[in-house]
């Protein structure tokens, strides 16, 4: 049905285009002076049909699921849903859906079979109504567009205003995305804070989110203080930066000042490869190679290294951050005006002295901005820590120990089937909100530094 609706859309667009093109060319052939080009008449007709019909189809597809589900559940016999919680109701709905899809397990009750049959009917009806609505709207719009063709019709202006509207819409999607992120995080986190007081979350020193979902389950009592999670995140971030900042900066200094242009042309892209490797690959590398190596090194030195040591996760994250830092630092060093460099060299400074005493201080704000962006990356990095860091929240600063991070907790809380009405799931959104806010502040700050600094020298 959906494919057919899109087929009708395509066909109607082509028909509208061809009709108006034909009509406009006929007018011109008769010697009437047209205001707009034939192509604009045709393009106007095509867009006039395409945009509203496409919106109709997308809205219909978006809304039919919830509407059908409400009709279906509302039409169930009296009493069968009494006393069931949301999870059980969802389960019944899923069962009916799977019966309607032809997958029957065991012998379902008769009312479920009846509901499944009704679901099939509803879906069929919805599809037919969609086709009808699409066809009618398309025909009406084709007629409207055809009706508009006239020598004095300003087809170009109409066409261009539709195009402008589309472009504005495209630009606003990015804003909608941000609004969507903030709205969903704030909404779900708000529901979490209604269950767990916000001061307990912000200042609590215990994080044990594995609470019972069913009444008969045996699990921890549950504690939602994010401090140990935050500390774990910071420990891993510090490890990552301690390794990556010196290596990144040294590489940038060498590439910018000392490397021959040909060496630079080879080394820079090779370093960039490190930034292009997917993080899940780094995570596997940490588990497969780095963590065992650190563990045996620790054993050789007589130290007890946890299998999920923060050192492994942070060290591997550092590899990912090296090209990030080095390219920001390289850009910042290149942005320092040539006159400063030439002046220092002319006064007899060596190239190392020029670099360390003139260029580096001058580029420092830009470099700091880059490092801040790296910090935000490290805090938000997920896959490496999900695979290589621990799950238990321990309040420790020892990098040899196993710590957990905000992103690890988000992923472990949400992996698998989740319902949106228990604090365990909602806690992930509260953590997500904190993560978003922290990285946002760092990003805004860092981007401002980088930009301001660039403008100062341009």
């Amino acid at each position, binding site marked *: 049905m959906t494919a057919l609706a899109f087929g009708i859309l395509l066909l109607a667009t082509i028909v509208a285009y061809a009709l108006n093109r034909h009509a406009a060319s006929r007018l011109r052939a008769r010697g009437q002076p047209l205001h707009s080009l034939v192509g604009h008449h045709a393009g106007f007709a095509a867009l006039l049909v395409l945009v509203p019909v496409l919106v109709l189809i997308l809205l219909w597809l978006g809304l039919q699921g919830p509407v059908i589900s409400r009709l279906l559940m509302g039409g169930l016999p009296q009493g069968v849903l009494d006393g069931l919680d949301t999870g059980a109701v969802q389960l019944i709905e899923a069962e009916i859906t799977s019966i309607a899809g032809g997958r029957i397990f065991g012998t379902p009750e008769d009312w479920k079979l009846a509901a499944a049959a009704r679901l099939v009917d509803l879906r069929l009806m919805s599809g037919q109504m969609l086709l009808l609505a699409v066809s009618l709207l398309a025909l009406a719009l084709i007629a409207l567009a055809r009706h508009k063709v006239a020598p004095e019709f300003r087809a170009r202006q109409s066409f261009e205003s539709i195009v402008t509207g589309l472009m504005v819409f495209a630009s606003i999607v*990015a804003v909608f995305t941000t609004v969507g*992120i903030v709205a969903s995080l704030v909404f779900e986190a708000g529901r979490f804070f209604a269950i767990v007081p916000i001061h307990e979350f912000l200042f609590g020193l215990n994080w044990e989110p594995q609470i019972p979902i069913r009444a008969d389950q045996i699990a921890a009592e549950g504690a939602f203080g994010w401090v140990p999670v935050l500390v774990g995140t910071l420990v891993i971030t510090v490890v990552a930066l301690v390794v990556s900042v010196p290596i990144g900066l040294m590489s940038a200094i060498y590439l910018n000042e000392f490397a021959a242009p040909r060496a630079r042309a080879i080394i820079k892209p090779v370093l960039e490869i490190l930034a292009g490797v997917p993080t899940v690959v780094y995570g596997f590398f940490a588990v497969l190679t780095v963590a065992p190596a650190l563990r045996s090194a620790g054993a050789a030195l007589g130290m007890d290294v946890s299998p999920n040591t923060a050192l492994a996760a942070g060290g591997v994250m550092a590899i990912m951050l090296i090209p990030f830092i080095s390219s920001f630092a390289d850009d910042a060093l290149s942005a320092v005006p040539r006159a400063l460099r030439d002046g220092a060299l002319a006064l007899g400074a060596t190239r190392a002295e020029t670099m360390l005493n003139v260029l580096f201080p001058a580029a420092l704000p830009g470099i700091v901005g880059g490092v801040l962006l790296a910090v935000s990356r490290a805090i938000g990095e997920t*896959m490496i820590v999900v695979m290589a860091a621990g799950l238990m929240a321990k309040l420790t600063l020892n990098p040899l120990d196993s710590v957990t991070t905000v992103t690890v907790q988000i992923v472990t809380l949400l992996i698998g089937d989740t319902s949106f009405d228990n604090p365990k799931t909602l806690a992930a959104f509260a953590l997500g909100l904190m993560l978003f806010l922290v990285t946002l502040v760092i990003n805004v700050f860092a981007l401002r530094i980088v930009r301001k600094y660039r403008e100062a020298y341009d």
Partner: protein
Amino acid sequence: MIEAAPIMTPSRTPMQQVQASLARRRRKQITLQVLGIGAISAAILMLGLLLTTLTLSGRHALTQTHLTVQVFIDPAEIRADRLPRGGFDDVVTAAIAALIPGADLSNREGRREVSAISSNGAQFLLRDLVVANPALIGQTIALRFPVSDPYDQLFKGLIDRATPEANRRLNDAQIARFDALVAAGAVSTPLNWGLLFNADSRFPELAGLRGALMGSFWALLTCFVIAFPLGIGAAIWLEEFAPRNRISDLIEVNINNLAAVPSVVFGLLALAVFIGWFGLPRSAPFVGGLTLALMTLPTIIIATRAALKAVPPSIREAALGLGASRQQVVFGHVLPLAMPGILTGTIIGLAQALGETAPLLLIGMNAFLTSAATSPFDASTALPTQIFLWADSPERGFVSRTSAAILVLLTFLIVMNALAIALRKRFERKW
């Protein structure tokens, strides 16, 4: 005002002072250079180590140990009127036992020992053959099928025969039986095409990436269809048409910040909005593609704006001078000239999207599925989430398969980036 020249000790003229410090300053310069080279070498060493470990571990999964046996499709076990049911397992086991001297099929224990050599998939392979062609019943055919994971490891030399029997995954009798098969010439290691063309499985010797590849394909297609037009539209409006005011400034700052939002946050957005509020199906590549599109959008917008900015104003002025409208200028002249740059940026954005894992995990694209998605709305995994799933699997055979899957993913990324570079090289214009 003239001051008296400082009194100089005859032993240290300024020249001498400079000379004396010169060695120290040179040393400093050399130290800095050495540190720089050291840093770069360390980074490149890491890259080398990463690729070497993955290749070394992944190469074992590029071949798969197979067994070729003459199977007598016994009409007593497999009856045409009972298909697709039948004792396919027993038939295969009997065929293997025929090659092992002293194999004892009379008791359960013995049967299980022999049967464990073949992969669990062997019987289904035979079943599908027979169901497709029931005339095979009563004949003897040559059947090639994968061996199970421990024997695969043994044949590839990953199980050390020298370790004490108690610490080995296979005991001496099992190794002896397998050696008999090797001696009979029944064992071969062809290229492991199953890695690409099989769907996922709990058994490493059968597991393949078809489901993941299809899932990634559908997700990337959705991502491209949504992000490409939206990204170009937004970039054109912001670069060519938008009035310079607070609103367009806000949109610009917003896009730059969106590019730096952690990917897991996009997963939360998708989970709450697409799945929770809109009721879209969980685990569907379409939802994954939608999420990836939102993440790719800033990349495409930024790349497109840079490409549009690189087109010299003279092109615009010439077209305007000939009477084109502003949109005709952009769509007829500027956009075609900027297209190579836009495509390069898009391909790089898609390559990033292909490797993105965390948001896909949150929307449930880490399900265990033994069939590949045939539409973007079927449940599916994607290449990176499959890697994550396999990396978590306890079977030894999955270690090399995870590495091999990573090599497949990296190959795709290299091809995409090479394409982007080639595009840039081929069409790049210096104005």
